């Protein structure tokens, strides 16, 4: 026990006053958890935006205006099977897009037909396109099996595969025509997951709806040229909407950012309340410990020794609060966004945020201890001799 000193006293004191210690830890941990969760949420929003931009590339969609109905792909709504199909693009639009002035930035122009098809009594979204070209401009695609190489082969999105319970090699009948599943696209997080992809001409033949288009996907080689390409296509195809995937994602991210702003505001509030709780608890502790502090002083503790003891106690509590708060914050960041399923965030937690959270606990504890410690230095040591 040669090491008996201020640390031993601090630990023993905190152990004896568990209720108060837990209250301070909870106050600090709540502030840390809020900070870590909200900062991670903000980072997750940014990471999700970045990863989706990377996933989608700098791409555009050229779509008819005012889609309204139920089955959707890329913002396009397709009528349910059997109902009238509207919102079509003239195939001549393709050559207008290919002919824009900045055509050197066009990596691919992919006409897409979207049709609702009924298979075994359930509606599915079928996409007719040039799948090989699509795969070239979507390098993130991972296919179990193979890409379709013949008009009677289809590629299934993961959700469509699960609904159909199909595997590569499974036969399907679409509009009375037989097709074989050549491959299944692994989850992309995009709308491909819900579709049955096939050759556009084969889809037109199977559904008997002709070769009219619902959208054109345009891959751009340089993300810096997206805005210019959008403007030129808009001018070339005045009856269509030209949507940048980037713009769409940024819009979604904006909604998330508003949420993050609210979260940041709440964090500031929580941090202030937590600080207040800790300051009040510490002040109450100083008042309760007046006599004890008087004893310390009478036994030869200098004022700075008493201050040092108080800061040691605060730092011990803040260390525990940092661990608890960071753990709760990470859990909050992981599970909080699930309350809003449409957010669909990729969890991002960074070391600087965790370190920042831990530092916040320490800074709050230190700040909250300054005034009570100052009061302790002003206590008259003779208080230990006063009668109760």
């Amino acid at each position, binding site marked *: 026990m040669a090491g008996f000193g*201020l640390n031993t006293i601090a630990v023993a004191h905190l152990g*004896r006053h568990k209720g108060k210690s837990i209250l301070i830890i909870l106050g600090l941990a709540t502030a840390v958890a809020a900070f870590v969760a909200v900062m991670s949420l903000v980072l997750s929003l940014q990471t999700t935006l970045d990863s989706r931009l990377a996933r989608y590339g700098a791409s555009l969609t050229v779509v008819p205006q005012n889609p309204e109905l139920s089955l959707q792909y890329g913002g396009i709504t397709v009528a349910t099977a059997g109902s009238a199909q509207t919102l079509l693009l003239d195939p001549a639009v393709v050559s207008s897009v290919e002919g824009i002035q900045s055509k050197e930035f066009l990596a691919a122009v992919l006409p897409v037909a979207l049709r609702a098809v009924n298979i075994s009594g359930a509606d599915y979204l079928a996409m007719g396109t040039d799948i090989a070209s699509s795969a070239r401009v979507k390098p993130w695609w991972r296919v179990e099996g193979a890409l379709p190489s013949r008009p009677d082969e289809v590629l299934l999105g993961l959700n469509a595969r699960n609904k159909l319970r199909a595997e590569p090699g499974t036969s399907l009948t679409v509009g009375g025509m037989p097709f074989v599943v050549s491959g299944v696209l692994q989850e992309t997080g995009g709308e491909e997951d819900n579709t049955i992809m096939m050759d556009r001409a084969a889809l037109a033949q199977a559904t008997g709806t002709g070769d009219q288009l619902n959208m054109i996907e345009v891959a751009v080689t340089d993300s810096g040229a997206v805005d210019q390409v959008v403007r030129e296509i808009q001018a070339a195809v005045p009856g269509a909407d030209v949507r940048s995937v980037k713009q769409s994602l940024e819009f979604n991210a904006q909604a998330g950012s508003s949420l993050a702003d609210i979260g940041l505001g709440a964090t500031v509030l929580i941090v202030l309340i937590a600080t207040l709780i800790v300051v009040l608890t510490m002040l109450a502790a100083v008042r309760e410990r007046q006599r*004890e502090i008087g004893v310390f*002083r009478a*036994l*030869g*503790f*200098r004022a*700075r020794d008493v201050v040092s003891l108080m800061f040691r106690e605060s730092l011990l509590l803040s260390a525990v609060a940092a661990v608890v708060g960071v753990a709760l914050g990470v859990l909050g960041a992981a599970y909080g966004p699930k309350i809003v399923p449409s957010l669909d965030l990729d969890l991002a937690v960074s070391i600087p945020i965790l370190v920042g959270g831990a530092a916040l606990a320490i800074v709050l504890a230190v700040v909250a201890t300054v005034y009570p410690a100052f009061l302790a230095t002003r206590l008259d040591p*003779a208080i230990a001799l006063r009668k109760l």
Partner: protein
Amino acid sequence: MLSVNQVRKEYGPAGPGRVVALAEVTLDIRGGEFVAVMGPSGSGKSTLLSILGAMNPPTSGTVTIDGIDVYELSQERQADLRREYIGFVFQQLELLPYLTAVENVMLPLAILKMPDKRGKALRALEQLGLDTKKADRLPSELSGGEQGRVAIARAIVNDPPIILADEPTGSLDTENGQLVLELLRQLAAAGHAVVMVTHNPESRLLADRVIEIRDGRCGGVSCL
């Protein structure tokens, strides 16, 4: 050892409301002397003890310990002086309830860098007759007499030349009070200057000198 020269202590605002707690008190206390300070409540006994203990600067006059003018020192140095020269025994004993007996005894050593603090504290407890098997018990697990021994052990653990005791028998029953008085008597016999504020009439019999304080003044013949 301990000299008090013309010490006056006043409290409160200037004017008729000002209270004179001590008025021109002068006394000398030598090593090995057991002095009892007696007097009615509010007579200034505890004020005198706090002034002797380097915790309460007098309004005027001087207090010297081994020739050092206590109140000329900075507050930090006064704390050092308390630790090196003075051991306190408080009325309510003031053992910290969250520290064990031996840890309470080690308190004055807590801020010192020195080896074997526990050994030193155990020797102090042993000297005062506490079963060292009880050294790791909390104060609440000890009897009143054992708590008194721990409080005195804490006062002597760093071997200070002066022991100041503020009604140390006040919170104890007669038997344990007698025991504490006897222990203080032994400390004086061992060379410590012991000053004890007390109401206990038994003290008259054990003390080498009794200082009577009335209305802030030495009322007895033995003040000097």
